[in-house]
């Protein structure tokens, strides 16, 4: 197990290096001079000296690799520079937004689990019967509906027409229902299909037949013998589609005026606040890589065979 973790962590470092190089390059490629942005050149007269002074202060007059080195060095200390707009350190901006987005993500995932697991199990149990068809129908809808549009419809229905739930804002549980559902639903129904397929596959294994022949109770067969491997494909796809999930979170945050990381990033884009965009991209990158690492490791916990196979090599 330790060697596996060691391998994965080495991988992680490589990936993070590529990621940092990538964002740094993008930042350098960006049009417009950040110095002018900071000095607010549109509205004020800026002298050459002022510019040169700031450039020197920011280190923009040094060769690129030195800049990258310094940038990396700062990055190691979690120093991502200061936001052009607010003047606060980027890391501070991010840290205040993380819990807000985390809350949304957490509730969305909870809703997702609450839909995925029962729906997946239910449709696997009644293959080709109406529950199965119903879940298929839901999955087709879920995969075809743009989630911002779903959100708009929900707002229209529940906030404007029925007036039972607030359309935006943050703070109370009633405010989290709509955004979390909007984010969770489209993924939940698609994952439910994956879970169903995984269950059908694992329920047809010989060892399930053997367990039944030993008189093992049906619920034990489903949850202890079959469910475990059925989760694997769902986890894989979850890891791969984590990006779309985070993307969906951005859309939902904008839609419901949810002041999380997504809102921060979109605001930053329109204000050309490069350090903030960079911080956001790096943060999500690290998050995606770490989550996928966890997904990978969870395989070994779920199915110890893999661990032994890999260690034998």
């Amino acid at each position, binding site marked *: 197990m330790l060697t596996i973790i060691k391998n994965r962590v080495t*991988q992680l470092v490589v990936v993070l290096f590529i990621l940092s190089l990538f*964002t740094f390059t*993008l930042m350098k490629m960006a049009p417009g001079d950040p110095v002018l942005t900071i000095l607010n050149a549109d509205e004020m007269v800026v002298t050459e000296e002022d510019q040169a002074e700031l450039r020197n202060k920011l280190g923009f007059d040094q060769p690129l690799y030195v800049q990258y080195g310094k940038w990396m060095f700062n990055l190691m200390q979690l120093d991502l520079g200061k936001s052009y707009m607010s003047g606060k350190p980027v890391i501070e901006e991010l840290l205040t937004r993380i819990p807000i987005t985390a809350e949304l993500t957490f509730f969305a995932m909870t809703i997702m689990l609450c839909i995925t697991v029962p729906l997946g199990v239910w449709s696997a149990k009644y293959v080709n019967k109406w529950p199965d068809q119903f879940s298929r129908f839901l999955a087709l809808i879920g995969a*075809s509906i743009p989630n911002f549009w779903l959100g708009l419809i929900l707002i229209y229905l529940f906030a404007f027409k029925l007036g039972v739930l607030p359309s935006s804002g943050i703070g109370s549980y009633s405010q989290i229902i709509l955004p979390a559902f909007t984010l969770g639903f489209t993924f939940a129904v698609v994952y439910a299909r994956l879970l169903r*397929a995984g269950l059908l596959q694992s329920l047809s294994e010989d060892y399930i037949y053997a367990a039944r022949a030993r008189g093992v109770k049906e619920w034990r067969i489903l949850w202890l013998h079959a469910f475990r491997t059925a989760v694997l494909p769902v986890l894989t796809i979850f890891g791969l589609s984590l990006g779309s999930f985070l993307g*969906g979170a951005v*859309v939902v945050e904008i839609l419901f005026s949810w002041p999380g990381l997504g809102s921060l990033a979109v605001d930053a*884009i329109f204000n050309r606040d490069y350090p903030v965009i960079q911080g956001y991209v790096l943060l999500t990158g690290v998050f*995606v890589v770490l989550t996928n690492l966890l997904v990978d490791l969870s395989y070994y916990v779920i199915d110890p065979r893999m661990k032994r196979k890999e260690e034998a090599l």
Partner: protein
Amino acid sequence: MNIQMPRINRVPFFFKNQNLLIQCGIIFFIIITLTTLIGPFIVPNDPLTANMSERLAPPSSAYPLGTDHMGRCIFSRLIVGAQSTLGITALVVATVALIGIPIGLVIGYIGGRLDTVFMRVADGILALPEFILAIAIAGFLGPSLTNLMISIVFVKWIAYTRVVRSIVITERNKDYVQAAKVGGSSNWKIIRRHMFPQIVSPVLVLATLDIGKVILTISSLSYLGLGAQPPAPEWGAMLNDGRPYFQSAPELMIYPGLAIFFVVLAFNLMGEGLRDKWDVKSR
């Protein structure tokens, strides 16, 4: 147990015939294609002409679906918007497949160190999901449709390479490939003749389903203002335009949303149908 179970068709309502899925999808698809191709020539109004005196007009003979907040014909904008949304999507998916498939074939077949290196690079790129990448590129290089397309292509080809690679890796160790080698077939011939046919159906299914996904991504980003820029009649952008009015004029967001929904549904139906028909396992 290795008892072969005959397939039984006792499926309720409209899923009764698996081919029905494809048929529905194909009918949708034909309608969509026709709309895209001839739509711009038959639209009643210029999609870009604003007419402030006719703002938010209800449906009428002149404006079949009414007008938007700038007095533009919604119907015309939808039809013309189909062209840009679908055209871009088709271009993106085709590019992605053309890049991804050959790389997957070669990497999967050769394997070894090349494969390891590729998987590392792929992991690195996948750490930047297309949506986030799009945000990054839009953020640094400015929001535009071209930048959006670049960012999707940049990430998406890996999915194709992965699918192709994993099929090739399973197949290349099978006896029939060994037999072809023993029979003197060159590697190129084995790839062409034995590997390629194996990947056609999974890749077609993947591509069909991806068209829907790409449409959703593009329209989401356009909705955020990071894709198509106003006044282009792109569906996501239209939704964004309509947002301030949707309490008073919900149709501004209902129509483009429905358009996106049905087009994506069509491709999903087709993809699902093809997957069932060819019995493609999702990898």
